[in-house]
């Protein structure tokens, strides 16, 4: 039972353009969502998060949007840079189950220069 789904295994974007990574979830009890970025041979690093009481959170070039009615969130990167090329994981948490996270399968982003 995949509670968090990232349906696009990969995405290729030109440098300077917008990257949009998508994530869908099924569990309406999730109250907090995070995006992690992962380079090869490294562990995931935290990028940005959003609480379920908000619909947008912005941090520099990164913005996360949450649509609770559609159970959908997206990560926008503007402008995209070659250093953004990595695997991006969406993760969700249910407060009833403490700090445990449920991860999506990840999307490989390639930013072409």
């Amino acid at each position, binding site marked *: 039972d995949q509670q968090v789904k990232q349906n696009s295994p990969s995405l290729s974007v030109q440098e300077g353009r917008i990257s949009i990574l998508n994530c869908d979830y099924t569990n309406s009890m999730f109250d907090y969502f995070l995006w992690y970025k992962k380079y090869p041979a490294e562990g995931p690093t935290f990028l940005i*998060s959003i609480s379920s009481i908000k619909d947008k959170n912005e941090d520099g070039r990164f913005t996360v949007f949450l649509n609770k009615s559609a159970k959908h969130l997206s990560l926008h990167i503007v402008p995209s840079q070659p250093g953004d090329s990595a695997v991006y994981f969406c993760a969700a948490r249910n407060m009833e189950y403490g*700090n445990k*996270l449920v991860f999506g*399968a990840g999307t490989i982003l390639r930013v072409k220069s």
Partner: protein
Amino acid sequence: NAGVTQTPKFRILKIGQSMTLQCTQDMNHNYMYWYRQDPGMGLKLIYYSVGAGITDKGEVPNGYNVSRSTTEDFPLRLELAAPSQTSVYFCASNPGQGVREPQHFGDGTRLSIL
């Protein structure tokens, strides 16, 4: 500041062998976690701990054991290695309080069972 340190980085085991994956953190975090990542899949929680002496199962605990004798260390034990345990293993930690502190991850241990 080392953060979360995992050793070894790579290991090849034969079926039926045992080994311990080491994880240590220097951030005085209460919560620690073990995940495995299979190709094309997200990270799946194996075991977690909310403090020294307290551990609990995650989503995929079969074939693994953990212990938490100190705040810093959270080793993962494979007793009888099986090919299905070939994976990349990540350890993570966070303070465990409130919503604003995300999990910090180590760089992983790539394990092959042949």
